[in-house]
């Protein structure tokens, strides 16, 4: 189904782009997630600026590629002197900034947050069209699809999993994670509604849920209250229904905080984790 949508949408973008312009040579990005798209699709010499977050490997998957590029903090005055011919922004980029840039005659393309695999694919195709890198984008989507389709979860076996997130209020991202978890075959969530949708799970509910698998992030190099909370001593005492210590999986945030090809890696890490957890259950 999504192929049809994507073909349709990309055709639409293609038409609109024919009318608009030629290949952008000076691209600026105002959002961490559009940074990833730009870094993925363009050669360095066509990028005039990415956000200051792009070089932080904890949250930016392509941090290596971002090194040495001019940084911006989402301010219009940082962008203007760079004379970009295309500016990519996120839906959460400050409105005054994007509207100012538009008023000044710059071409600004706003990207929605990828909240599902479908928007993830759409964003890559859309970026391909506006950056005139349609072929590269199509390839990325294909590779992503192949990765995801290669996962054949042993379905029907429920396995209770809890996803811990620092600052659980970054909720929009949870839905992309929901797609990831569904693809991998996690069918049973102990604290169903909260874990799958937009929501918060209190620690007492987690302990009561007795999960078999706990997914969390590795600690960042900087001090973080959110990560400190995920190291609460109570987690040491969490047991599943058979009284075993739940398996803990580290899922780096940069693999799924933005919708991009890197999400395929998150999928395979979790698929492996689920298979191992099921194996261990059979052994015992």
């Amino acid at each position, binding site marked *: 189904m999504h192929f049809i949508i994507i073909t349709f949408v990309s055709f639409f973008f293609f038409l609109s782009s024919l009318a608009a312009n030629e290949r952008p040579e000076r691209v600026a990005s105002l959002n961490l997630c559009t940074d990833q798209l730009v870094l993925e699709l363009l050669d360095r010499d066509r990028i005039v600026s990415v956000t200051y*977050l792009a070089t*932080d490997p904890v*949250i930016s998957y392509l941090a290596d590629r971002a090194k040495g590029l001019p940084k911006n903090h989402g301010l219009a005055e940082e962008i203007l002197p760079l004379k970009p011919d295309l500016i990519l922004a996120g839906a959460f980029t400050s409105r005054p900034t994007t509207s100012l840039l538009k008023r000044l005659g710059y071409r600004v393309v706003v990207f929605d947050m990828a909240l599902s695999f479908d928007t993830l694919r759409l964003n890559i195709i859309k970026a391909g069209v506006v950056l005139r890198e349609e072929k590269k984008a199509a390839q990325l989507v294909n590779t992503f699809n192949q990765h995801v389709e290669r996962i054949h979860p042993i379905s029907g076996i429920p396995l209770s999993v809890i996803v811990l997130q*620092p*600052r*659980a*209020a970054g909720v929009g991202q949870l839905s992309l994670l929901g797609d990831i978890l569904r693809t991998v075959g996690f069918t049973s969530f102990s604290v169903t509604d909260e874990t799958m949708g937009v*929501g*918060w799970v*209190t*620690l*007492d*509910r987690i*302990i*009561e849920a*007795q999960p078999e698998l706990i997914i969390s992030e590795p600690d*960042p*190099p*900087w*001090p*973080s*209250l*959110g990560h400190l*909370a995920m190291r*609460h*001593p*109570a987690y040491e*005492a*969490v*047991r599943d229904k058979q*009284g075993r210590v739940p398996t803990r999986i580290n899922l780096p945030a940069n693999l799924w905080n933005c919708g991009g090809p890197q999400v395929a890696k998150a999928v395979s890490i979790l698929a492996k984790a689920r298979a191992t957890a099921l194996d261990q259950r059979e052994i015992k």
Partner: protein
Amino acid sequence: MKPPLNAGQTGKISFPLLLGSLCILVVILFLFSVLIGKVMIPVGVIHEAFAEVDTAYGVIIRELRLPRAILALAIGAALGVAGAALQGLLRNPLAEPGLIGVSGTAALGAVIAFYSGLSVTFSFALPAGGMIGALISVVLLYILAGRDPSVLTLILAGVAISALAGALTTLALNLSPNPYAAFEIFFWLMGSLADRSLNHVALAVPFITVGVVLLMTTGPSLDALTLGEDVAQSLGVRLSGLQARVIIGTALAVGASVSVAGVIGFVGLVVPHLLRRAVGQSPSRLLIVSAPGGAALTLAADTAVRFLTNGPELHLGVLTALIGAPFFLGLVLKIRREG
């Protein structure tokens, strides 16, 4: 200020009865705090908290609810007593750790200790930061407002200190390498006891205890002070010693509280205000009953926040502010009427 002599007779109920019933209330609310939450604990399983094998209930009681209840008890008592002591020293019913900027400055100290990474290597840096922050603000307030400040001076000094602390906190967060620091602290500053651990108890409660005990010792001197500084001195009260005890006691109690729980405002205002008439305007008795009073209010509020909203828990500081702000406004009106 009204004369404090023969204070015992002006109270409507006897002092031991008041103290006793407040203590019983605290015990009941403590039990509620342990048993009630998103997960309800049956009374029959309390012993599981200390069993050899961990059960889900046991872990929840021991690792989550107990630390939370202990902290609510200690912090509530600290805020109540600190409020009563500051009000006694400054002879002003509006003196409260949150309003006069002590909590905000303590939060600044804790934020610096945490986001500089200091508390990662040395965990006592967190309460130390909070206490140093609180100490600086009380000293600053004393210099700014003087010993017997008018309501206006006191509040203005508090506003100035709070604003400065807020600005410096934002500066500290901007300098932090953590891109989410401002977001994290935005919520932390609202004050909460959710998911605190026994580590937090060990970090904060010893300092809080020392601070509260120190504040309690000021009772007789504060009583004498209600007669005026000259009379108090002739009765043998050393003013500088009294000031030092109130300042250091407040810094220890409030600083350590804020460093683990964030800013929980208005407890120090509401509790002494509610209890003042019942103890007959005697600062020493007010100090004593403000401990169980503050503990009871904080325990009750911290249990209530677990149910007041669907989804994310309401922050404790938000609830105490919602309760406390009307009291504050009422006090302001009353003071204006009395002129």
